[in-house]
């Protein structure tokens, strides 16, 4: 059991160790203490009298705290240990480890307690790609501490290790020589501080104390609506989602102390435009403050100039921010990188949806400049072909992203025969988001910014876009919308889950919605667990292909929302039931994606292997499905409730839903029979 990966974190500082608490990283291995995208410890090994320890058990106390129970010896055979060791580790600004050794014997013992320490200061990107370092290392043992350093020009990072008890420090770690009385104990506190080489003075690296973290988690859970359901798994799925979402909160200094959801734990603990926005949308009925944090932070980093390397334009919302060495030396464009199309469109969607729930017009006024710039970007910079459609083509050909929509893997956008279209590509859901952004932007312009001229123009543009879209993207003989238009304006004719996002956006003509819904729940797209990213029978369909056949819980939560928007209550309930059934198999924590195999074939959902768990928008999926099933929709100062639940749910109560109405309870009873 020593191999089990244990992860704890606080913001973007996290530790990945084995179940003994030891860290033994190789250049490509992901163990270590990481902070701001840099590894600060690649080696941290505890031994007693030269002997490694074995794990008895691990307590995951909180997401930021773990306790390891250890005994001498690493064998599998039971050892009659005369002593035991407890390591209690808390993350924050590095980590803090309380090391306690208990002597169970009648005799006094003498021990050499050793911690081997080293750091390779790898950038996260280097860990992924196994690249060589360009700077120089230093190990400086001092009387009361060990300083591990790395330097490349002005770039400095250091790890400072110290202890509360007397220790001898050398270049490779520290040693305690101790005696423990019969049935006595000894303990020390170890501090490992991640030094950012001066970046701290800018206040860029806040640390939080354990007490505040505990309090903050409690406050978070207390503030969320309470859920009761006859179908018990839903209660644990709900709680898991709330706790995971708490762990995924990230408080960059630029957000003025507000938190926003990072994309995934631990590798994507950073600002991501798309992921932070979509997760905030999913969580709106439960934790509306996440949306405020997301809108503020992303607004402040909104693009302001043209920069090919970063794929930046004025008004564009960022894709991803990173702080490591490769970003610092511009070997990667993430300072921040803007190569993403949907985030800017969804930014306006989130701002409007946030106002509809919370009535917080102050924020909408504060972000007027950013929202207007985002709306202007749609026509000024995103219409690459001047044909009235949003499309993408990267300007950074070397390290930029090819596909700048949510399906961002290389083969995600293809024709039925599997061939890939050229660039620019205008994927269909981007047109839906652009339509929705304009409609919602018009509402905000009229209501809050008092600009009727802008409102009218946006409404006109939206209506025009909808008319053209329903003509140019509609595949008449298939009865669905093309995945994209290629540079020549040809329809990329595959059937994909993106059709569900179109329903969500409202761009679909009413007359077409029924056949679209039919496809989404039809045998080619619906697996029984959920809607596949790509329909069975398409050239590139593969049930375990990342964006070409797997089922994504987040995708499905928005599809369900879209189905409800067009009145397909039963279909939305079927999607919700499938995804929540899957969640039960994953012990309440939905993965990023799972296999697109037919439900009747596998009986259980097959997980797609991904590095990050939990993933923010998968964590948010059950929340949005709850909203969809209960039919929660703000209407002025009221919350409309129109439940349509699968019969298996029985009775469902969601109490104290926060919003402009104060707090409201929602109830529903399952009446929809789910076939299969």
């Amino acid at each position, binding site marked *: 059991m020593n191999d089990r990966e244990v992860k704890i974190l606080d913001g973007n500082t996290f530790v990945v160790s084995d179940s003994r608490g030891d860290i033994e990283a190789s250049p490509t291995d992901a163990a270590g203490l990481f902070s701001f995208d840099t590894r600060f410890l690649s080696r941290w090994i505890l031994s007693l009298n030269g002997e490694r320890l074995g794990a008895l058990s691990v307590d995951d106390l909180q997401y930021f705290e773990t306790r390891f129970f250890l005994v001498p010896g690493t064998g599998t055979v039971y050892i009659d240990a005369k002593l035991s060791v407890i390591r209690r580790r808390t993350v924050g600004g590095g980590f803090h480890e309380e090391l306690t050794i208990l002597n169970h014997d009648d005799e006094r013992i003498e021990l050499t307690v050793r911690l081997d320490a080293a750091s390779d200061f790898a950038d996260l990107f280097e860990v992924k790609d196994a690249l060589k370092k360009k700077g120089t290392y230093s190990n400086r043992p001092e009387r009361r501490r060990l300083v591990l350093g790395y330097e490349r*020009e*002005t*770039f*400095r990072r250091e790890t400072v290790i110290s202890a509360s008890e007397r220790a001898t420090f050398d270049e490779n770690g520290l040693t305690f020589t101790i005696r423990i009385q019969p049935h006595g104990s000894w303990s020390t506190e170890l501090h490992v501080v991640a030094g950012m*080489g*001066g*970046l701290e*003075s*800018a*206040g*860029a690296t806040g640390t939080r104390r354990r007490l505040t973290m505990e309090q903050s988690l409690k406050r978070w859970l207390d503030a969320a609506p309470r859920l009761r359901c006859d179908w018990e798994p839903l209660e644990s799925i709900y709680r898991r989602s709330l706790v995971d979402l708490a762990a995924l909160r990230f408080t960059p*200094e*630029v957000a*003025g102390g507000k938190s926003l959801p990072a994309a995934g734990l631990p590798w994507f603990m950073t600002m991501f435009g798309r992921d932070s926005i979509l997760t905030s949308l999913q969580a709106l009925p439960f934790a509306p403050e996440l949306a405020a944090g997301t809108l503020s932070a992303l607004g*402040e*980093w909104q693009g*302001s*100039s*043209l*920069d*090919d*390397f*970063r794929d*930046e334009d*004025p008004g564009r919302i960022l894709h991803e921010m990173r*702080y*490591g060495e490769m*970003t*610092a*030396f*511009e070997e990667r464009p993430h*300072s*921040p990188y803007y190569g993403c199309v949907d985030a800017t469109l969804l930014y306006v969607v989130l701002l409007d949806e946030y106002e509809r729930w919370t009535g917080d017009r102050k924020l909408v006024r*504060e972000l007027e*400049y950013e929202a207007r*710039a985002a709306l202007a970007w749609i*026509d*000024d*910079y*995103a*219409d*690459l*072909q*001047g*044909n*009235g459609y949003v499309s993408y083509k990267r*300007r950074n050909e070397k390290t930029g992203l090819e596909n700048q929509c949510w399906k961002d893997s290389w083969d995600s956008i293809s024709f039925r025969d599997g061939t890939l279209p050229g660039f620019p590509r205008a994927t269909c859901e981007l047109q839906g988001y652009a339509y929705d952004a304009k409609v919602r932007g018009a509402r905000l312009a009229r209501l809050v910014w008092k600009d009727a001229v802008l409102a009218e123009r946006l409404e006109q543009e939206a209506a*025009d876009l909808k008319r*053209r879209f329903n003509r140019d993207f509609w595949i008449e003989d298939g009865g669905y919308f093309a995945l994209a238009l290629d540079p020549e304006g040809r329809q990329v004719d595959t059937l994909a889950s993106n059709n569900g996002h179109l329903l969500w956006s409202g761009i679909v003509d009413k007359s077409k919605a029924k056949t679209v819904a039919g496809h989404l729940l039809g045998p080619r797209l619906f697996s029984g667990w959920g809607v596949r990213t790509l329909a069975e029978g398409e050239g590139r369909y593969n049930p375990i292909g990342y964006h070409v056949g797997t089922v994504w819980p987040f995708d499905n939560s928005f599809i369900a929302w879209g189905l409800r928007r067009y009145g397909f209550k039963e279909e939305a309930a079927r999607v919700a039931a499938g995804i929540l059934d899957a969640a039960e198999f994953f012990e309440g924590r939905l993965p990023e994606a799972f296999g697109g195999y037919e439900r009747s074939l596998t009986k259980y959902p097959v997980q797609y292997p991904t590095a990050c768990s939990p993933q923010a928008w998968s964590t948010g999926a059950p929340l949005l499905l709850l909203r969809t099933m209960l039919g929660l929709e703000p209407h002025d100062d009221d919350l409309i409730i129109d439940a349509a639940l699968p019969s298996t749910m029985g009775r469902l109560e969601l109490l104290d839903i926060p919003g402009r109405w104060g707090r409201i309870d929602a109830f529903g009873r399952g009446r929809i029979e789910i076939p299969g």
Partner: protein
Amino acid sequence: MARTDPIADFMDGVASRGHEPSLAKATGTVRFEVVDGRRTERWVLTVTRGELAVSRGNAHADVTLRAPRALFEQIFRGKANATAAFLRGALQIEGDVQLIVLVQRLLPGPRASRRKGRAAGWAASRR
């Protein structure tokens, strides 16, 4: 012939903008410490809800930026990226980071390779 001074040029440009709508939310002072060998040149930018004013000297600031002259020159010409320079430790920032994230909007971008869309004068050719 007088030597061109990109730093003075940038500051003059900022001062002549008067009101900057993208900074309408921002209020505060930023001090630029331009290190030139043993000499340090100090500029102070005052933002009052988007109103910009520039002065020389050592006034109190909410945030201070410090870097060698060559780096500031590159940043003000759009040839170096301020965020990357900060992460590299070449540009030191002390104080209110939130303010400086907004003030970044005053910096020129690099020369972009090509531009399409309405901004580049595309005639709307919608069918």
